[in-house]
């Protein structure tokens, strides 16, 4: 068995092994192996290529951009997605604009350990995909499975553009698979995680699993729910979403991030604009509450969507 976290480590090992241009840079990623052990033993296996950085997110990303311009393929590990805001400027203004301004690619991968786990609180739980997806010039990956964590990270390193790789901390140890995949869908292609005919849930990352559990629950009530795992937020696979809505006539977009704007709003905007006549009911969305992410498990468990709240939303959607 291999966990989601181990898949991320193995992808990095593969990348380091396959491509001499790859190096890893981040706080405590060296001999220590990273705060979550996502780089455990890599510094030992690849001397000089897995480097501890100072606590300087701006300079971490800035230097990765420089190295990428000079032909390298850096992987930057943010210790938590939340701290990437300190490197925000370099990501959105330097990396994201580089190709457009100069015609030179800027192939950096920025790993963002994202999302909530109980007890993590306001500054170790954030989901920032919408923030980054807003900027032209970035690719946003949000793998929900062990297989995707592996395959998409390798793909991220190979892509010629800056990739923001949102890996979900809640899945690190929870999620297991038998083996690593030999092939995978490419970036920009969503996956039908569960086929159904009564309603479509469009989601990504950890919420795929909550949505699948909600679909299980509704199956006991006789409903067949389709679950789409977007895999990449940008580019967003609108075609797969619309095709599913064409089958079911109903859509619920689910995201763990905050409600204002964001990925679920984008999905519904597209469905409303491009697939309005496919809808049998008003489109719905479900996000976290519009507050910072709470620390206490009781609060945290209610702050974000869960299988139960997704199932409740689906019941409303199916009745409307």
């Amino acid at each position, binding site marked *: 068995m291999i966990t989601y976290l181990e898949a991320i480590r193995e992808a990095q090992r593969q990348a380091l092994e396959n491509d001499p241009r790859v190096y890893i840079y981040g706080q405590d990623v060296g001999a220590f192996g990273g705060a979550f052990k996502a780089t455990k033993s890599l510094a030992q296996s690849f001397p000089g290529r897995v480097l501890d950085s*100072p606590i*300087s997110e701006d300079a971490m990303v800035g*230097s990765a951009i*420089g190295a990428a311009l*000079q032909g*390298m393929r850096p992987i930057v590990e943010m210790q938590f997605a939340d701290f990437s805001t300190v490197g925000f400027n370099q990501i959105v*203004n330097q990396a994201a604009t580089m190709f457009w301004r100069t015609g030179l690619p800027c*192939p950096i991968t920025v790993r963002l350990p994202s999302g909530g786990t109980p007890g993590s609180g306001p500054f170790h739980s954030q989901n920032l995909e919408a923030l980054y997806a807003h900027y032209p010039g970035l690719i946003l990956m949000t793998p929900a499975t062990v297989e995707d964590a592996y395959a998409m990270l390798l793909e991220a390193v190979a892509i010629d553009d800056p990739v923001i790789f949102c890996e979900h901390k809640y899945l690190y140890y929870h999620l297991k698979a038998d083996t690593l995949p030999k092939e995978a869908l490419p970036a920009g292609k969503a996956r039908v995680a569960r086929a159904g005919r009564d309603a479509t849930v469009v989601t990504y990352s950890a919420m795929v699993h909550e949505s699948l559990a909600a679909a299980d629950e509704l199956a006991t009530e006789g409903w067949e729910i389709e679950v789409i795992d977007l895999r990449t937020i940008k*580019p967003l696979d609108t075609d797969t979403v619309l095709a599913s809505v064409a089958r079911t006539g109903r859509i619920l977009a689910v995201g763990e991030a905050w409600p204002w704007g964001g990925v679920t709003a984008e999905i519904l905007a597209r469905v409303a604009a491009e697939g309005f006549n496919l809808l049998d009911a008003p489109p719905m969305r479900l996000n976290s509450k519009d507050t910072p992410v709470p620390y206490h498990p009781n609060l945290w468990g209610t702050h974000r969507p869960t299988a139960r709240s997704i199932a409740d939303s689906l019941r409303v959607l199916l009745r409307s």
Partner: protein
Amino acid sequence: MHDMFRLAEAPRPSCTAVEFPETYRRAYRWMLLARVAEEKIASLYRGGKITGGVFLGKGQEAISVATGMALRDGDIFAPLIRDQAGRLAFGESLLDFTLTYLGARSGPMRGRDGNVHRGRPKEGLLPMISHLGAMVSVVNGILMAHRFQKKENTVGAACLGEGATSTGAFHESLNQAAVEKLPLILVVTNNQYAYSTPNHRQFACNDLIDKAIGYGVKGHSVDGTDLSACLETIGGAVAAARDGEGPQLVIASNLRLAGHGEHDDAHYISQHFKELQLGRDCMEVAQNHMLAQKWADSSMFDLWHRDSQSLVEEAVAHSLREPAPDPAKEDWCALASRHLLEGNPPQPTHNH
């Protein structure tokens, strides 16, 4: 780079008695070309011919040219808004300057970015983003890559104003360079004002050079109005970085002799500074020095000035004839991986 409008290959600054006058004269000619070119763009701006801002390096040519001249092929240069002289000395063509200010499609930024936000990163000249301090860590990263790639003996220079020393990016990047022992030369020109903000509202240390010890890097102070001192100090700092002595922080003192940009009359600049040594115009200081040393006479100055003017006139005339970008033919694609563009990507109509 374009060969057009380049003066003959400039020798590197050297302090040997025989070569120094020639180095000094070349430096002066780059400075003069920069000043004449900027004056021309400023006059076009006043005539309403320039879209967007115009930022001059007036008073800053000496420190800038010394930086550009101390670098060589394979080195990295991250100039800022007042580095026209350094850019030219590093090898940027005058056409890159005029085409970008005039928004031509054929300029290096193709009308997508303008004025001082230009460069040719493949050739080591980084195109600044506006966010102050942000280019320094990019230089660091290129130097780290050189290390990975076993590309030896290269250095990188980045220029900042004193205002930029207050940014987090300055702190993070200088510390990073020190930790990695990178051959970075960080040239900070303290021209007394950041836009309108005087130094006592910018920082509270006695002297910015005191920061060097805090970061564990070598510090050099220099009179930014004195070309000889600039050539020697920057030359020394670059040589030290090249010799493996790690990052070098240079603090040059001068006065901004123009507005922040051409939209700004700089009424807030105190008369007091204009009377100090740091308030001198480095061009005049250089001229007087050459006259006193008999390295040049007034007829040479006139000749050089006329040369610069005709180079500038030619570059501007050429650039004015160049077509502007056409929104209908523009390739509206911000991704190098075109297949990852959402929707139906428009076909490229130009190849860069």
